[in-house]
């Protein structure tokens, strides 16, 4: 109190001396937009410098690098239970592009992100926290001038607190497709020129989400997709589940634990039907969006099933012996490979994938072709890059494959854009 009084006297004395008013330091005057907020805005020169510092392959002084401007866009979607949910997504546009690109308009890539557990890993949250470019949009936007869309998915961003519907195709497709529509409206409201061309992609869970989104789009006929290139997705969930449950150990227990947690929630079943204690009691906390995979895995066991395992013995027994077992039916219900896309599809996958077997994409390709898909082809990443003189064809695991897979996908999209749009 005494300090306050003295401060008041001092300040009053100073004001008397200076005859000047006072004000607080106002908030930074960031650009305002309609229906969202700018969360990252970095020029191409700075990004190029950063890429050169990191020694990113294929980037040198002569590489054209565009600026990266990201918006967080709120929108609504529908969850597995049919409820409307307020969610968010990240839209990244290239800046500093030639006038001809603006005149012809931007092509859009919907890039569904891979598996995350913590909210701080969500696209909009990373952008808010770091004000920095991150992940695939650097390749898709700054290096190849696409507008990139990344839905946070239900459970992250603005819907933090809702359980994340991990590999549940309806809500993942809803979140993806609804964001494309929301982003198109945002672009129209803010004079961002789009040319209508749309590509779908995504890695791992994102590959699965991209395939689910394509299935929804074709079913509804709501928009035109030029090409879908899902990457390393678990399209055949039943086959994946059989492989996992047949194994004695789990490579990454958090993945399967999250499947069980999400499906128990979505299908309104007790989690203890699937997961042994003490893990069943831990999962609501571990999957509350505050923990990363690196923090979750040590809290779980790598033993697949049995008394000391993650899954109950009943799950394994029922999955292989009861064709009407609800969990098996749910897996089959959420498969995304048993249909015939009429949109061209390129299944991008590394043959060395140690998490989502390459065979899943082979199965998907074969099944879709057998069902009279229009144009589905499997693209093995290592061999394709080696054919272009990039890499020696060595097999790449799931994590190592992501960056080259995105690079390859960006090249495929760019080639089509050049042939169709003209740049």
């Amino acid at each position: 109190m005494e300090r306050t009084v003295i401060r008041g006297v001092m300040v009053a004395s100073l004001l008397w001396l200076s005859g000047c008013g006072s004000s607080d330091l106002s908030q930074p005057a960031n650009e305002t937009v309609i229906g969202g907020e700018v969360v990252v805005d970095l020029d191409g020169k700075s990004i190029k410098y950063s890429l050169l510092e990191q020694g990113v392959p294929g980037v040198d002084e002569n590489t054209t690098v565009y600026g990266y401007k990201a918006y967080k866009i709120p929108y609504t979607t529908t969850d597995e239970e049919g409820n409307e949910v307020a969610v968010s997504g990240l839209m990244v546009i290239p800046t500093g592009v030639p006038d001809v690109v603006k005149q012809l308009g931007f092509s859009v890539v919907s890039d569904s992100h891979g598996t995350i557990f913590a909210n701080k890993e969500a696209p909009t949250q990373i952008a808010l926290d770091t004000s920095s470019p991150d992940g695939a949009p650097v390749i898709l936007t700054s290096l190849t001038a696409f507008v990139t869309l990344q839905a946070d998915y239900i459970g992250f961003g603005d819907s933090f607190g809702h359980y994340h519907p991990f590999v549940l195709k309806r809500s993942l497709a809803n979140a993806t497709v609804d964001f494309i529509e929301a982003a198109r409206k945002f672009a129209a409201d803010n004079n961002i020129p789009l040319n209508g061309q749309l590509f779908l992609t995504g890695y791992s869970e994102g590959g699965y989400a991209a395939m689910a989104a394509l299935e929804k789009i074709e079913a509804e006929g709501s928009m035109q997709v030029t090409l879908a290139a899902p990457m390393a997705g678990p399209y055949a969930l039943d086959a994946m589940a059989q492989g996992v449950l047949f194994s004695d150990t789990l490579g990454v227990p958090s993945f399967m634990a999250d499947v069980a947690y999400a499906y128990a929630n979505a299908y309104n079943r007790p989690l203890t039907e699937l997961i042994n204690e003490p893990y069943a009691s831990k999962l609501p906390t571990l999957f509350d969006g505050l923990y990363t995979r690196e923090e979750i895995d040590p809290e779980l066991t790598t033993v697949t099933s049995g008394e000391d395992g993650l899954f109950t013995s009943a799950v394994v027994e029922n999955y292989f012996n009861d064709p009407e077992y609800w969990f098996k039916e749910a897996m089959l219900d959420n498969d995304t490979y048993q249909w015939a896309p009429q949109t061209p599809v390129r299944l991008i996958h590394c043959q060395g994938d140690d998490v989502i077997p390459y065979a899943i994409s082979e199965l998907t390709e074969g099944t879709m072709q057998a069902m009279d898909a229009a144009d589905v082809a499997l693209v093995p990443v290592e061999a394709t890059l080696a054919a272009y003189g990039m890499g020696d064809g060595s097999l790449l695991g799931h994590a190592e494959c992501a960056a080259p897979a995105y690079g390859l996908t960006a090249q495929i999209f760019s080639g089509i854009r050049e042939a169709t749009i003209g740049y």
Partner: protein
Amino acid sequence: MKRTLLLTTLLGSAAVAGAYKLPEQSLNSMALGAAYVAHTTEADTAYFNPANMAFMGDKQYFDGALTLIHLPSTTYTLIEPYSGESEEENIVTPTMHYVSNPIGNWRWGVSMTVPGGLTKRWDTAYQKLYAEEFTLKNVELNPVFSYKVNEKFAVGGGIRVVYSEGVVKSDGGDIAPLKRHMEGDTLEFGYNLAMTYRPTDDINIAVTYRSNIDLKEEGEANIWFGDVGKQYSADVTVPLPAALNIAISKTWDETFTLEFNYERTYWSSYKYLDFNYGEPLANDLLVEKFDDPIDKHWKDTNTFRIGATMVLNKITFMMGFALDETPVPDKTIGFELPDSDAKIFSMGFRYQQTEALSWGAAFLWDSKESRSLTPGVAENEVLSYGGSFDGGGAYLTTVGISYAF
């Protein structure tokens, strides 16, 4: 939090002694180059040596002054594009002092001064990243007392109340996509002590001490990465260092006075320039440039002063000279304060208009030495390449009035 923006032209001050301390706080002290501790005569005695108030006449004293500080630009020379030149600055600072009538052996007084400050602005690419603007404004309210032990010895002391504002702006411009604008203020307290011994009527021996005050500037910082900015609560602490003065004066025929003054300034309390934020900065580049503590490790300094006063009927002439060390080591020198050793020359006069009223003017030149940096020594990324600082220094012009009644 209350945030007060004050006109720089009135309350800013600048580095005119070593680093950002400003010893000259009145007409007499300006004219004598702050060799004004043992032999003080006006109301500014309250500030420079409150013990001396005990020996002043049986009346009240008032002293006011305005000082125009002109800071020429500092030039940093290296190969392009690293070279740069700071902005010139013109700043006006007011000071006021009052000494009361004696109350028995006691007496009180009060000063309002600008005891330190700094304004450095660069508009050249590499310098802007570190100090687009670095401003520290201080104003001190210093109530003091004296006690006359006997006719030869008196002691004094007071409370230092310092209000301070800081502004820091950094702009990576074309170098890096970073920008910072911080404003903060604080109210801090300290003390000062003084004693005077007069072995004879014409000799004064004085010792004064002003305590260290850590100025913790608290406020907000707007920090941009690219074109997206966020606001953080923020604080940064810089010391207003303790200073010990030992002075002796001798007066001949009540006409000519010579004063020698030694000042030890305890700048070693300034170890780091460490900005703290209410939450972690957004990314590693921002942390590296704006959050990691910057080493300072300044050293204590010595300043030697001599002042001469000649009283001729109604006019008093004064002049001074000082050798002033910089506390800033080569290793931690930065663009916000490219300080160097200095020689200080000063002169002035006071005219006795009436028995009660006098006025005068003074001029002081703070001549900074050029400073060459050996490559590989400085921690600053640019200054580690070497280069040299030239120019800088300061020209101070003071007009003042005194009234005794």
